[in-house]
């Protein structure tokens, strides 16, 4: 088993490295001058040139990439002389627009996105798997019908529709959840304010994912119930409850874990629409703003980060699958 993990970790690291090269390369060959984007309207060629040197855009591409890569481990110094400043390790670059080291920006945005992803996950997995199980057990009867209506709605409504619906009706018109003007408040400081901030975005995302998971769980459970080993379990004298919750769910667990892991990874990469609608100070919103403002350093950093999260999650899910499905381990 450890060999299995080591192999996967090795390849994951290699993939992340490759992704970073490709992303960096792609953004570096874009047909506009990164230095020219660093200053606003009051730009002069002189300032542009100065910025070019300061940010290292005058160096050859591979050197730039090397500085970027080493910056992650050693920190990076920009400029020279009196105008010198350092982004300490790990440095993902410098945002001229925000006048901040990208790392600091990430440090602010990441917790918001992670809370969003995890909270939504808890809701969608409970609802999705629970409803899917009920639908499978009471197939053809009203729990099944209710769940298929839910699935239809959930998968058809895009997040901007549900999100805007919540924002406009629940917050503004009906004032059930107050508009949170303070921004992100950690749960440790004020649970109430924390919930106010996240509850609607959680529900927006959860409805969509729960619908998919309900359908998926229902289908997988029904398929498993037809398997010979479930018949054996019944023949042993096990109660239907044990057959369903122990034997069946155990088999359903593996594919659900794989999906869940990848879905969470995707969310961390940036639930851009939801974050924008509810004005959450997370990675998604940070990315989209950086795109509008042509803030390349930020975009490069968030892309690589999102890719790394997905790759790492893939690794974790692979390892988990190895635990959940013993047949896979033996290879």
């Amino acid at each position, binding site marked *: 088993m450890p060999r299995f993990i080591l192999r996967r970790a090795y390849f994951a690291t290699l993939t992340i490295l490759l992704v970073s090269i490709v992303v960096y390369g792609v953004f570096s060959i874009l047909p506009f001058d990164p230095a020219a984007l660093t200053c606003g309207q009051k730009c002069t060629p002189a300032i542009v040139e100065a910025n070019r040197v300061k940010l290292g855009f005058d160096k050859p591409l591979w050197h730039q990439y090397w500085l970027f890569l080493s910056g992650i481990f050693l920190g990076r110094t920009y400029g020279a002389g009196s105008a010198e400043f350092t982004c300490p390790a790990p440095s993902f670059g410098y945002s001229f627009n925000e006048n901040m080291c990208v790392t600091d920006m990430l440090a602010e945005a990441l917790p918001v996105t992670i809370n969003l992803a995890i909270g939504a996950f808890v809701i969608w997995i409970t609802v999705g798997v629970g409803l899917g199980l009920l639908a499978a057990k009471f197939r053809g009867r009203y729990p099944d019908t209710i769940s298929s209506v839910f699935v239809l709605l959930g998968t058809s409504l895009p997040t901007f529709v549900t999100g805007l619906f919540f924002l406009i009706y629940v917050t503004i018109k009906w004032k059930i959840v107050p508009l949170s003007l303070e921004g992100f408040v950690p749960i440790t400081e004020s649970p109430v304010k924390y919930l106010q901030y996240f509850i609607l975005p959680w529900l927006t995302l959860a409805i969509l994912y729960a619908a998919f998971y309900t359908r998926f769980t229902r289908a997988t459970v029904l398929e498993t119930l037809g398997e*010979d*080993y479930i*018949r*054996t379990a019944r*023949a042993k*004298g096990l109660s239907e409850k044990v057959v369903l919750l122990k034997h069946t769910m*155990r*088999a359903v667990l593996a594919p659900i874990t794989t999906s869940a892991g990848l879905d969470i990874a995707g969310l961390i990469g940036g639930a851009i629409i939801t974050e924008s609608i509810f004005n959450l100070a997370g990675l998604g919103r940070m990315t989209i703003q950086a795109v509008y403002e042509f803030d390349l350093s930020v975009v490069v950093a968030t892309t690589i980060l999102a890719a790394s999260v997905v790759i790492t999650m893939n690794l974790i899910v692979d390892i988990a699958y190895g635990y959940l*499905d013993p*047949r896979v381990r033996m290879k």
Partner: protein
Amino acid sequence: MKNLLEIKDLKVTFPTDDGFVHAVDGVSLSVAPGETVAIVGESGSGKTVTSLSVIGLHNRKVTQITGSILVKDKDESLDIVSAPLDKIRSYRGRVVSMIFQDPMSSLHPYYKIGSQLAEAYLVHHPGKKEEANKKALEMLSLVGIPEPQVRAKEYPHQFSGGMRQRVMIAMALMNDPAVLIADEPTTALDVTVQAQILQLLKDLQKKLNMGILLITHDLGVVAQVADRVSVMYAGRIVEQGSIDDIFYLPHAPYTLGLLKSVPRIGAKSSERLKAIPGQPPSLINLPTGCAFAPRCEYISLAPAGSCESLKPELLGINGEHKSRCHVPEEKRDKLFAAEIKGART
């Protein structure tokens, strides 16, 4: 009751889109301690549906079951047909166990063998974990699996087909059941492995004095292990008797037809096989009269018109050996015995 299992006039009907399927149409048989009773039939004969009824695995909301299935548990006995589900569950795996055809798909792929075996014990003896684990190792040994402590920690896919069937047998016997139902236990196995498994079942039966209800389509397997046989066709038993009765004195045209059509090692291979013409009937639209009539070559020997219009009763001149046929038994006796001799040389 001295029998471990007594099935009386079992009828099982399923509704389908095309109509009601009369899968089992009045089956009666019994299994005594230490005896192996075989139900022989082809697909659609109702043999598997019968076996599943004994362990109560049909969905009662959908399936109509009438008749009685008495299973004996020491001093008490239970009628599976009318008993509540929780009582049936208390019998499953403890008084009557079942093993199935495909051992690969019948074992849970994600749980270790040892824990699957222990679970079979724990269901009926809750909380006795240590005993369960100990018994699991004992049973693995009993069925001939080397190094049980090591193998108990392994998963089904790490075992070969024959080994997996041994594990299934071990699991079925964890609670020393009175009756073991074996549904085509060796059909999916190689012939040399089949020989091993059948030998194992015989040995275990001797040791534990249990009754075995063996479901199969293979006449050779029946000849090897069975004491008494019920031959099923289109949901009914067409002949029932001791093993020698069935193989040497068949009284049902279907039985005779089967015995004549099976290729045998040592028989003259230059002759064509005497195949039974036609096909088994649909179980939704059973013909009036005898279900085998469309394929039977002895209709002319029966009273005119009886085979097509009247269903024959299961009768026998001498006690245990019964058969269903309108042709008078004395006529069949001489004729069939001669035909069977011809088939065996």
